[in-house]
């Protein structure tokens, strides 16, 4: 099975997406999921969305096409993180 690919988008790709990418990688790896996680700016989503299985965004995004999007701040605040991890696992099945 090909590796699943997750794209993490934030406003300008400086701080938050860097943290979120790492956190998601860490959690999914610990759950035994082998995934590729990349980061981008919100504005880059339309050009990249099609080659990913899931987009996790900390900011509103447009142009994600058919790729499912989870918008959440839980990877930054810790609030609701378990639910989001479940949701991500569900979407990547």
């Amino acid at each position, binding site marked *: 099975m090909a590796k699943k690919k997750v794209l993490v988008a934030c406003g300008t790709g*400086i701080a938050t997406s860097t943290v979120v990418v790492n956190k998601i990688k860490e959690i999914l790896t610990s759950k035994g999921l082998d995934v590729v996680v990349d980061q981008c700016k919100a504005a880059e989503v339309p050009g990249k969305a099609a080659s990913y299985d899931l987009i996790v965004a900390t900011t509103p995004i447009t142009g994600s096409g058919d790729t499912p999007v989870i918008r959440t701040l839980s990877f*930054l605040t810790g609030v609701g993180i378990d639910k989001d991890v479940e949701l991500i696992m569900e979407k990547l099945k």
Partner: protein
Amino acid sequence: MKGLSSYISEDLVLIHIDAEDEFLCIEQLGNLLYKKGFVKETYTQAVIDREKVYPTGLSTSGVGVAIPHTDAVHVNKPAVAIGTLKKPVLFHLMGDDEQTVEVQLLFQLAINEPSEQLEMLQSLVGLFADGEFLKCLQQAEDESTVIALIQAELAKA
């Protein structure tokens, strides 16, 4: 890579900031970073401009926090300036044009190379998960207590 403790100091803490709005808070911490040589003159305005488009307020299980920041071109040396607010100031919630959050703690970032500062960002975000700790931090009476509390919390992790 270095964790958060390498990027904070008593010199970069402002206690009980008294400001009317989020931009005046950002300005005070921006001026501090500029005075100490961590950022360029253009930094503060750039942070304010970015905050207007991509707000950075976060609602935690403790007190509201914000992490204003901007592009690397405005930064000389990476650092994190910390501010506690006398009274809560409304910031817009990250990724949300309508909702606001009452912020009482500010962590204003000067980042020049995100991949180099990943560990710092991670340890900072790690602090946000502990609501009780954030409440303690908000009540600190002086700069050295702020730094001591953070160092102690980081040592726990």
